[in-house]
């Protein structure tokens, strides 16, 4: 299983290195989102207040795009069938794709966070750095697992992809809320303090573990026709 995980994650990252779709396409998309938010919301006080929410909102939309790209890659020339025939362990496929997804998402989020700090005039509270890092890792893992799980479900048979946003909405909402609250605490938005944030990181961790384990165990039945 770990061999397949490494193989797939390596392959996905190599494809990204060669095609640079995430770097060249999703990053501008996300940046555009941040700029447009700032632009449309039209008020400094509102902006600083909602900055943490916007970061994670933008991360989530980018997730949708990355997931679609990640599985379109497999579907384009029938590679998914080939993967199935290769007898690759389904759990390994899940973890491999989630790993590559998380790596790409992580890069993106750093950029989004940086943009928010500059564009929205937010500041990190000293004690918030550890909290921010914790939030960042757990939320990224959670999003990557959920994305891979539902992306795998939605790939292939036409008409399924319709389901993706519908299925993901209620599932991702807790991540969005948790990550937003934790980030607010780290940035001291609305007078929140860093200690307010850690329970949310706990929630995010729980979430990532549930979907990581659940996905690894169930991915086989999901992608198999």
């Amino acid at each position, binding site marked *: 299983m770990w061999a397949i995980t490494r193989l797939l994650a390596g392959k996905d990252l190599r494809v990204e290195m060669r095609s640079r779709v995430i770097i060249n396409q999703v990053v501008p998309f996300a940046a555009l989102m941040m700029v447009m938010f700032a632009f449309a919301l039209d008020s400094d006080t509102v902006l600083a207040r909602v900055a943490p929410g916007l970061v994670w909102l933008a991360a989530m939309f980018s997730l949708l795009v990355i997931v679609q790209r990640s599985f379109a890659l497999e579907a384009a020339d029938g590679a998914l069938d080939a993967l*199935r*025939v290769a007898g690759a362990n389904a759990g390994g496929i899940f973890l491999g794709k989630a790993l590559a997804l998380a790596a790409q998402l992580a890069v993106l989020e750093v950029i989004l966070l940086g943009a928010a700090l500059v564009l929205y005039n937010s500041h990190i509270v000293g004690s918030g750095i550890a909290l921010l890092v914790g939030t960042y890792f757990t939320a990224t893992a959670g999003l990557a697992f959920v994305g891979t799980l539902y992306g795998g479900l939605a790939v292939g048979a036409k008409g399924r992809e319709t389901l993706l946003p519908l299925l993901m909405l209620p599932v991702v909402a807790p991540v969005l809320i948790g990550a937003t609250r934790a980030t607010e605490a780290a940035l001291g938005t609305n007078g929140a303090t860093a200690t307010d944030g850690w329970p949310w990181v706990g929630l995010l961790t729980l979430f990532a573990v549930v979907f990581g384990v659940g996905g690894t165990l169930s991915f086989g039945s999901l992608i198999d026709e």
Partner: protein
Amino acid sequence: MEPVVELVDVVAVLGQFPVLAGASLRVARGEIVLLRGPNGAGKTSLLRLCAGLLVIRRGSANVLGVDLVADRSAVRSRVGLLGHSNGLYADLTVADNVRFWGATIGASADEVLGAMQRMGLDDRLADVAVSRLSAGQRRRTALACLVARRAELWLLDEPHAGLDAAGRDELDAILRAAASSGATVIVASHELERAGSLATRVVEVVAGQVRERAL
């Protein structure tokens, strides 16, 4: 000796349509079987079924000793399938692709290199992205991925299409060598002269059913 493929009255459905409507087939070890039949008869479906990719609605199927009704996935790592599409990652190079598909069954670097050379993918092409290849060069790459996999059962869907004269001869030699070293080969093709001379037996697929047929 136990047959490599044994299908009895298999029914398989895509959407509402029965792509296989009671197909029975028996293939022994070392055979090279040609599937022929009109467009839409079900040849592709039959090959995919043998690779464990289709759900069996009725009948029984046993491939390489594995009961496909009970567990379709156990057979997969032991067969090699070349479909109508190539299963390549367009953004990766030829060498990347062959290496990746070889690695899924643990082929060594030498085996990968050998497979590429067999299919005439020399150093110049090795580092070219698949998206820049001609149609025939892509097909050659897909075949190299297949060769690197050392399968016990080879399932090939119109493998000659797109290959040039030299590539066709090379492919036939590879398949003959595989069969004589104990692998089994099933080929679906419309190029009856060439595939017919390669095959040890011809089977006709019509309307989702299989009829044996003299050479």
